[in-house]
């Protein structure tokens, strides 16, 4: 546990000693601000009661964009620089190593989402806010982020170039968020159609947005995270049996 915390702390530290975290934070804050102002304008023009939901919907898209930047260096860099050797010859289990990377990325995600609570405070002054639904929405954001970051971590473990890992992660993330849009392009009888609809992250997220924690969605998202963390651990371990 102590080693896990030490690893996680260092991992977070790396984000903040490099300009990476600040760039991601700034861009995320800027874009989310734009989105917030945009949705508020629409509410003002349409005279409809204000709601935080459209902003949350946009935040999912922004998380997709961050997934590559946040995860691409996690393991690829250690492989390239050779630091993997000093870490994995210390008494640390491969699982603790992988989990610390993932935890650090999720903590960064929480940092990203924290400022958006400011929007919530602003909005609450102009109309009633369903805090339960908003809380569900944030849970959904964390879950979707968890899925994307665990996949990114897995890809980072496979690649020894950060850039390759980043590009691949972004491709997969975009695919996952648009799967449902792509589904109708396929033939009516294609077995892929229901699968695409099922894995689509925005579809999975939309229930949370309504303030419903659907157990099947929850289990699905959590098991995807667990699955990719498991795969990542196996990839890290594979140096032993290759």
């Amino acid at each position, binding site marked *: 546990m102590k080693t896990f915390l030490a690893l996680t702390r260092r991992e977070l530290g*790396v984000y903040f000693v490099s300009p990476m975290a600040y760039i991601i934070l700034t861009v995320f804050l800027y874009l989310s601000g734009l989105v917030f102002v945009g949705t508020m304008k629409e509410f003002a023009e349409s005279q409809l009661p204000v709601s935080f939901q459209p902003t949350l919907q946009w935040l999912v898209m922004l998380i997709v964009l961050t997934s590559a930047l946040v995860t691409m260096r996690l393991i690829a860099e250690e492989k390239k620089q050779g630091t993997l050797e000093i870490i994995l*010859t210390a008494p640390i289990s491969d699982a603790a190593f992988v989990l610390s990377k993932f935890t650090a990325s999720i903590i960064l995600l929480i940092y990203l989402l924290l400022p958006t609570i400011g929007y919530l405070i602003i909005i609450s002054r102009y109309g009633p806010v369903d805090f339960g639904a908003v809380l569900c929405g944030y849970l959904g954001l964390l879950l979707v982020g968890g899925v994307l970051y665990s996949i990114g971590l897995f890809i980072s473990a496979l690649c020894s170039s950060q850039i390759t890992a980043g590009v691949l992660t972004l491709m997969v993330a975009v695919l996952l968020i648009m799967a449902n849009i792509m589904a109708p392009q396929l033939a009516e009888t294609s077995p892929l159609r229901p699968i695409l609809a099922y894995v689509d992250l925005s579809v999975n997220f939309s229930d949370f947005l309504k303030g419903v924690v659907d157990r099947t969605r929850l289990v699905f998202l959590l098991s995807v995270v667990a699955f990719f963390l498991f795969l990542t651990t196996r990839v890290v371990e594979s140096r032993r*049996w290759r």
Partner: protein
Amino acid sequence: MIDVSNLTKTYPGVAAVDDLSFQVGKGEIVGFLGPNGAGKSTTMRILTCFIAPTSGSAKLAGFDVVEQSMQVRRRVGYLPESNALYTEMRVEEYLLFRARLRDLSAADRASRVGEALEKVRLTDRRRSIIAHLSKGLRQRVGIADAILHRPEIIILDEPTIGLDPTQVREVRELIRGLGEAHTVLFSSHILSEVEKICGRVLILSKGKLAASGTPEEIANRLMKTGNVRLEVRGEGRKIKETLESVAGVARILWSSKGDMNTYVVEPKDGLDLRPALVRACTSGGWEIYELGYERVSLEEAFSILTAGPEKGGTP
């Protein structure tokens, strides 16, 4: 302390380590010698549990590297060849982080880091960012990390590579000092270095153990090429003929200045011909002015052992 038996590691098409067996006792400083690609790093990576062997076993401090990897890792300090460090950290911060990974108690951490820094003489650079340090200083950070938790066994992969002569000497002194309290296995492809520090040398060639012993033992075993140099006063040709009749002589080179003759006698099959040659000279009534024995240096032994003809190599 280190017990390796029949260790083999194969990569597709190549055996990086081939049926390697050796032991290292407690408190020994053992040098691992071999040209690049001999399998030194691979062996060390197996011993430090970074990779697993294809077959065979290795035990460190009584623990198996595959079955009891965590116990082994706790007892081993390792400096990899790449000496990769988290360069964005400060020296002391990095070592404290490493101490935490090694599960040292909070009370111990600061004192152990201080101790390690003192040993590698980096105390005045403790606040420096590792990225700003020279290669030699980084190497010392790596060594400090390897000794931080007072491991029973220290494994150093090419600790002096890329250092300037002064730094090499310093690191050498440091390793010699480590031998007092730890078992040290270190690799090098430079002979003089190993010769100066190690009690024992293991010479590796193409993944196999080519020789093991003290530098002298290895050289002695290769005495095949140990020529005898004789300076004898007398009738040159006659002496040469007499010497040639001594059993075991392969070839004699003769030069003379007046009645002083110099002979270089090349023996057959690693025989030590000195007593026989002296007897031959004295029975002929000639006086010997000098008797020299051309010992094989470890340097020569090394090249003989490792540069042998390619056997069954695949293109």
